[in-house]
């Protein structure tokens, strides 16, 4: 084929995705110029690209959006899940369009550039997705140069030389370094975000920030909790000094085993207090490790907003948002823990709880944002348990 991407540089190409094995996907650059190395993954959600880009769990990753039109509703100051975009960049099928939304502040392209994030458009994203399905998520470089100047050999070397997510403690990098109080409620049409109006005796949750999504904090407030956020490396004593009624372990990027080095001992000490604990995503994996279960890296991970999860207690199915590349191995759960949720896509563990105290966690994202909000009940369950 004359325009076989790996044969030669496509004329006019200003962007390229370079895989560690030398495979090239040529396209047009968007957003910031430069290059970045990370794990190339995909996300199948059809809405919420801005939330996805700002989800700290995507630190170290380049996102291939499977839905072709990205940027259609622009970017705004509300639909963000962290202080900045954590994903390194994104790969898209179609050029980013001018926005059409009463909520938009600026074009998505501009937003990417403002935050120094790289986009490549005009790529057969379905081909990438199928490749990831078959071969797993590769290490890759995303690059944008408006003059189309790329040193492909160097970029391949960079992708191949990157050590990958396994063993990486990215949580520490994306976590806040300070302790702070959160009191904002979930978004409402016409009102945006409003501060919560909580009584002084409302239960107090300390949320450990491994890369926490703001939607989680908002859901905790909505469920009736006062929330204090602490850094990933906060010690047990620092946490206890805040007098929490419950501990929340957040989502976050990277390899749970690496973050677990300092997080697990803290969690274990907390469990010993028998006070309630709730974890999401990375927090779920860390709880798993803390109770002696094993985590394993998945072949392709779960990344989308259409994943069915079954509650084992009553058989109900909730449609969830997911973003994880590691999973807790259900077969390694200790005797005092049981599975509460499983993925109906591949039967992997999606939720666990301890049988002898109130400590539970889920692999999916009950806070949604983006995605279906079927699992909000978990926040209520947790905060109810603190009263």
């Amino acid at each position, binding site marked *: *084929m*004359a*325009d*076989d*991407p790996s044969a030669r540089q*496509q*004329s006019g190409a200003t962007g390229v995705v370079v895989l560690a094995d030398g495979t090239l996907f040529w396209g047009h650059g968007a957003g910031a110029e430069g290059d970045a190395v990370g794990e190339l993954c*995909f996300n*199948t*959600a*059809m*809405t*919420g690209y*801005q*939330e996805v880009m700002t989800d700290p769990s995507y630190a170290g990753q380049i996102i291939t959006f*499977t*839905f*072709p*039109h990205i940027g*259609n*509703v622009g970017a*705004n100051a509300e*639909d963000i899940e962290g202080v900045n975009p954590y994903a390194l960049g994104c790969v898209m*099928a*179609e050029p980013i*369009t*001018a*926005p*059409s*939304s*009463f*909520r938009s502040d600026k074009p998505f392209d501009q937003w990417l550039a403002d935050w120094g994030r790289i986009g490549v458009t005009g790529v*057969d*994203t*379905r*081909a990438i*997705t*199928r490749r990831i*399905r078959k071969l797993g998520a590769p290490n890759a470089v995303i690059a944008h140069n408006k003059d189309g100047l790329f040193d492909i050999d160097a970029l391949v070397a960079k992708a191949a030389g990157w050590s990958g997510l396994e063993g990486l403690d990215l949580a520490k990098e994306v976590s806040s370094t300070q302790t702070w109080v959160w009191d904002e409620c979930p*978004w409402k*049409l*016409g009102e945006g975000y409003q501060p919560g109006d909580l009584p002084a005796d409302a239960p107090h949750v300390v949320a450990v920030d491994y890369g926490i999504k703001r939607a989680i904090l908002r859901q905790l407030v909505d469920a009736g909790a006062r929330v204090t956020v602490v850094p990933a490396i906060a010690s047990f004593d620092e946490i206890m000094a805040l007098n929490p009624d419950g501990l929340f372990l957040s989502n976050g990027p990277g390899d749970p085993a690496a973050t677990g080095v300092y997080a697990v001992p803290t969690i274990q000490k907390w469990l010993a207090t028998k006070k309630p604990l709730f974890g999401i995503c990375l927090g779920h994996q860390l709880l798993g490790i803390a109770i002696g279960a094993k985590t394993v890296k998945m072949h392709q991970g779960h990344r*989308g*907003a*259409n*994943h*069915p999860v*079954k509650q084992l207690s009553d*058989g*109900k*199915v909730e*449609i969830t948002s997911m973003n994880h590349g590691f999973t807790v191995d259900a077969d390694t759960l200790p005797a005092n823990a049981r599975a509460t949720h499983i993925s*109906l*896509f591949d039967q992997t563990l999606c939720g666990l709880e301890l049988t002898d105290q109130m400590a539970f966690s889920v692999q999916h994202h009950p806070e*949604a*944002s*983006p*995605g*279906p*909000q079927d699992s909000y009940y978990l926040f209520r369950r947790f905060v109810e348990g603190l009263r």
Partner: protein
Amino acid sequence: MPKRTDISSILVIGAGPIIIGQACEFDYSGTQAVKALKGEGYRVILVNSNPATIMTDPELADATYIEPITPDVVARIIEKERPDAVLPTMGGQTALNTALALAKDGTLDRLGVKLIGADAHAIEKAEDRLKFRDAMDKIGLESPRSGVAHTLEEALRELEHVGLPAIIRPSFTMGGTGGGIAYNRDEFIRIVLGGLEASPTTEVLIEESVLGWKEYEMEVVRDTADNAIIICSIENIDPMGTHTGDSIAVAPALTLTDKEYQIMRNASIAVLREIGVETGGSNVQFAVNPADGRLVVIEMNPRVSRSSALASKATGFPIAKVAALLAVGYTLDEIRNDITGVTPASFEPTIDYVVTKIPRFAFEKFKGADTTLGTSMKSVGEVMAIGRNIHESLQKALRGLETGLTGLDEPEGLANASKGEILAALGKRVPDRLLIAAHALRVGIVPSEVCRVSHYDPWFVERLAELIAAEQQVRDNGLPTDAQGFRALKAMGFSDARLAKLTDIPEANVRAKRHKLGVRPVMKRIDTCGAEFEALTPYMYSTYGGTECEAEPSDRTKVVILGGGPNRIGQGIEFDYCCCHAAFALGPVEKGGAGFETVMVNCNPETVSTDYDTSDRLYFEPLTAEDVLELLHIEQKNGNLLGVIVQFGGQTPLKLARPLEAAGIPILGTSPDAIDLAEDRERFAALVERLGLKQPAGGIARSRDEAVAVAERIGYPVLMRPSYVLGGRAMEIVETTANLETYIETAVKVSGDSPVLIDRYLRDAIEVDVDALCDGDTVHVAGVMQHIEEAGVHSGDSACSLPPYSLPDTIVAEIKRQADVLARALSVRGLMNVQFAVKDGEVYLIEVNPRASRTVPFVAKAQGRPYAKIASRIMAGEKLASFELEPRGKGHISVKEAVFPFARFPGSDPVLSPEMKSTGEVMGIDSDFAMAFAKSQLGAGTVLPMEGRVFISVKDSDKPLILDAARGLEAMGFELVATRGTAKWLGEQGVAVETINKVLEGQPHIVDAVTDGRIALVFNTTEGVQSLKDSETIRTVAWARKVPIFTTAAASVASVKAIAALKARAIEVKPLQAHHACS
């Protein structure tokens, strides 16, 4: 939860005839439901009056009742079959209303039958406007301000708080019949009166107008465990104000942030819970204010629908099949996703392409009808297209419509229009509004101005602007000379034909240049999951927006079946039936097929043919030469292409026969040359002469002068029609040279390339339709159908009887002989349809079509033999001798009746003519003609009166014909009224008849009597332009007041026989299987 074991037999109610608002989507859903329930071991009983459906194939359900779908008849079926449950959610509004009536009158309770899928309470809550609004209030969802009225006075009271413009929606009507938007008080009064009349409960909702807001639909599925999932979101490009069925729509929604989308998702599920739809699919419609995102609920349908069919095809998630399984107790997680094979149905499909749906209209058939779109649906079909981006998706849909568009062609009549005129045109809700928007951009009107006037979302208008800019580039610079540039253009969906127009070179040259550069499409799969899992089902679409082809053609011997494209008048479900049968007959051996790999190509989302389950491989592609040749190119990369079937999908695939042949593609069955011979007037006349058959005198004209000469040579009246048409488009009986000239000037373009055919019109001849099979040597006449209406009424609009009810055996034998001779002379391999006219004992050949006809499914159901399947196997090389062909079952007579959409098109004359106007058909089957005809009328929605006054006004030549009917009515106690001439004549024959004024004779006249409900039945036959014009109001008012009206003498006579039969005995019901087994 496992399936229910407390029920073992289920009655599925179908949707009846194809009408506007209720088309083949309900055959698609009903067929899925019947198959799914049978697969679970239930005894399935089916009622549907529409013989052209796959669901009524006798091998599908255990007992198939082709009977009228009325509460009374369905109650008889329930009494006879005693099913444990009724599934009312698969047959549209017809099934829902019928089930609700049976629940309300106590029939279901009396017979111990449960409603599954949706109970009476939920149906009523969803369908009753007031109850629905209260339900929405209860769950905190906004609906437009509204009020309910049962009288005009109440309506005017409601208007005070709702304000103008106001929307009027009648309760319990389908497709918005009888509703509308009122901008002033006069309009308001007119629409309210019509709406009250249309509503079976004499109830209308007066509603705040949210005109111009964005419109969305959400397709939701819920199970008994309260698991609810969204299958698909649909965004209408046409904003609120245009009926959703008449709107151009895309999936998924493209202009919502996730936060807004989730509000809509939560609301949709809350609506299902509150309405109480415990299992199955529903759709919920929303309007969203583009300025602030305010969301209001418009309505919900507690059943599968046209949009659920669209959502199923758009995502690969079979909503109806899943809904049927949920209705018998399964939960979503217990049902497998067929496409991936490994994941359950409890998930939300995600797509990585854009789907566009465009409705197709038939206003050209209804002269005088208002083409403005509103809350009452007017489109007769739709096309769906899939592309990797909106540009490709939209342009594929436009060319798939088959209305002559190659893309965003310049709309008619605006070539020299000023910007002001273009903006004025853009302000109207008309079928080609999108083209007008594109044209506005073309002449330099800025996108923001286009948005302001049209209320289209800017996102869509910007995409149109990109397409128009690309067109300009091509106009200025010609075709790209490099592969990358050409590919970029093709990735925006430009067809070779469009590029040919833009560059003014032949399409073949565009294609040749493209191929030389190696620019060809790839196939991608529709897999429900954005490639996250492997797709097992080869359900594909083409795109230029990608490099990786997923077609993976097999090494098998394959047959490609080309479908019929969007439904239109003249080409609908009957042809889809034939295509499906070809797939069944030639498909897997384990399913009774011949063992070829079947490959279906079609772009109509409503159909069974585009169910991924129907054929081995499915390409959802426009039926243009370019698109078909490209997919054949890919299919031919592996395996052996036995051939393409072009004779089953109507005119659409037939038109492709030549280009396919030119490209060296084998055509199965009758040769394209033979098809051409039959269509080519002059060649055919030579053949007829050689065979010694008789044709009405005729000729062909390539200019106005030639036409006049031909007409004068053969003598008036003459039948005029353009060559190469289906459905009698622009056919007309012309009486004088002046009329002929008008026809030439207004109805057709006459030129060397498109001549006009002129035939002597055989007045009062009996028309006969014949369907036959031939394997090249042997012929089998499958059915001889005698039309009820005389020759001159389009065969698709005539009722007909199989076997003939009054033709002498000698004539039938002669007709069969002629059909035999013709089939062999044309070397037909497959199906052939012949139309004859019988006058004064002479048989005249009217036309031959060596292809599947509209009557094939009717004949198959009547005779109990799957003729389309047999024909398919003959086309693939088998001989007639290897099949059982003789009709099964004795002692029944089948009548087919056409169904008309006149009520949707006020302003056009509801009269039968050579131009086909019916949208669908029903079948009445019984032991004698009179009862079979009675059933066909009931099935078509015509309730014949048992008493009252009958108005008779017939043309002179019909008077002798109508006499027996008048006497019969008199004997049965009807009163007769007639206009002066008819009354005088009937009086002279000793019939007691009252005289009433014609409209022209002053009030009180006949229209007053019909309007006041003093007339129970109308016989009105006319001839000649002037009398037609004079009597038009009678017909219009009769249609509006739902007074049965017959506009031909033969049908009037038949209706009297039917009334007599209905008076003599109660309707009896009998399943098709019993009819066929009867010896």
